């Protein structure tokens, strides 16, 4: 099975305190730790596990710039056969629809049976996979947390729905799936593995390579534009406890006891 996994490099929100820049038009990025988007990493692992069961190859693709090569190399060190960077000044500032348009053009240059994305990235929009599927006229399923390959170019998948329930579906190939975290246990990638991949050239595709009309993507084509970032005025907010740890512990227990939280 030929599998394409669309990935993105994002600031790791679990490791970073996000601050706004003075102009409020972006976050302060200088000190941020970046990594592959968490659910994208699960998607790559899932692709690798499928290929190890039924054969085939995994290609990892991202739309971005030179800095984004590091995550392609990381996923290649996990076992992906190919890493591809799609990069062009014309792509800068694309919204979700723009990114899906670019990925569609790339997907159509190959013969992919299955296209995976992570369920959502740092903007929390959860949009590119569903848009890409609609553009390709492929079936789509979101929040996928298990995949079984069936006979006759079909998959049996489960989706994570409310209350921990699983919605079981059969879906025809080719299709697009957005992968939920927890679907598998992504393998560890050591520095040694990444070093071995360090000198492998990463092919780069531009707008003209893909036949993408620059007017259909990028900042000018967006239907959805972010005006600014802001930190919302906190309504009630927590009463922050200060002092020594001993004092804080006593205060917490006093309050918890008052709420009926101590036996």
């Amino acid at each position, binding site marked *: 099975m030929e599998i394409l996994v669309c990935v993105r490099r994002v600031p790791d*929100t*679990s490791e*970073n*305190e*996000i*601050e706004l820049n003075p102009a409020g038009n972006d*976050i302060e990025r200088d000190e941020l730790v970046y990594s592959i988007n968490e659910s994208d990493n699960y998607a790559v692992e899932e692709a690798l596990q499928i290929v190890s069961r039924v054969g085939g190859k995994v290609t990892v693709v991202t739309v971005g710039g030179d800095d984004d090569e590091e995550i392609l190399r990381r996923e290649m060190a996990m076992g992906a056969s190919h890493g591809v960077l799609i990069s062009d000044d014309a792509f800068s500032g694309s919204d*979700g*629809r723009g990114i899906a348009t670019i990925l569609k053009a790339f997907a159509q240059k190959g013969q992919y049976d299955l296209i995976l994305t992570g369920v959502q990235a*740092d*903007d*929390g*929009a*959860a949009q*590119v*996979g569903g848009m890409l599927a*609609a*553009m390709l006229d492929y*079936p*789509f399923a979101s929040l996928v947390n298990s995949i079984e390959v069936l006979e006759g170019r079909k998959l*049996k998948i*489960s*989706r994570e729905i*409310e209350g*921990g*329930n*699983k919605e*079981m*579906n*059969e*879906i*025809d190939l080719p299709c697009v799936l957005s992968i939920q*975290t*927890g679907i598998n246990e992504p393998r560890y990638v050591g520095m040694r593995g990444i070093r071995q991949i360090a000198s492998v050239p990463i092919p780069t595709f531009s707008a003209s390579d893909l036949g993408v009309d620059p007017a259909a993507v990028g900042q000018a084509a*967006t*239907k*959805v*534009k*972010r*005006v*600014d*970032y802001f*930190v*919302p005025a906190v*309504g009630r*907010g*927590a*009463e*922050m*406890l200060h002092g020594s740890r001993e004092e804080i*512990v*006593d205060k*917490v227990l006093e*309050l*918890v006891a008052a*709420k*009926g*939280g*101590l*036996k």
Partner: protein
Amino acid sequence: MPRIFAYIVHKDGVVDDSATELAFAARKIDPSASPVAILTGWGAGLDAACDTLRSSFTEAWKVASEPLVYPNAELVRKALVKVLPPGSILLVSHDHFGIDLAPGLSIKMNSAFVSDVLDITGVEGPQLNVVRQEFGGQVSAHVRCDISSGAVVTIRPGAFKAPAGASAGGSVVDKSSDVGVLSAKRRYLETLVPEVGDVDITKHNVLVSIGRGIQEEDNVALAQELADELGAAVSCSRPVVDAKWMEKSRQVGSSGKTVKPKVYLACGISGAFQHLAGIKGNPFIVAINKNPKAPIFQVADIGIVDDLLEFLPQLTNRVREMRCVAAK
């Protein structure tokens, strides 16, 4: 101003709580709007759901077709493309169904898409102004959406609390004949309910709940020791289940359990809205997190910025001491 529609989720004849939230969101886009509810389905359940909506919408469009008996997003999308007038604004709840339906629908409608909207600040000409969150809820963004060719907008559950209002006295319009034959390349099979775990976190008054901040599987014991002293249970947020450190049955959130404790100790939990959606009954929330920007501090009663792995054992010891003193 384009017409505003709200796609209403229902099950067994009961309309989802999001229906009134979508009606309220529609009025925030246009206070003079009479938003139209759209429901898809089949049989008596659909009729009952349509009937219920008369109280919150002036008009409900019923789309009945046997393949729509289960809300398969691909079939619902095909039905909506046929029924919705071009250029409409469609509101959908940002839940597992909305995530499945909405992005692809926006492509097929050739309209703008903006998701997980927390607030709507108004319309200026062809622009709809909304508020979203990014970076795990650490910052918000003002976003401008071009609605000149319509829009699909998903609304964060719980973000639009409608004031109780008078009945809208709506009517039901049958649009089923617009839909025609429906078929899909994805077919619903069944819904699997998870096995009940060893501990039922929904039955406990006090929960020691752990998130990504617990860092390692071995550290789960620190939370268990505190829970044992407090007579509490240990619950968790999604990353702990993803890492396979706890069973799915211990997860609090929209894709896990809904809990109603009196006291909730959120230990190393960032406070994603999907997690908060599982905490009901307005418990006393104590949040411990090393990141002072963590969104959990916006909803907690008491906040402590500290290293969990040092704070938890000290808290456990102090509970133990107090109980020894009490026993004497």
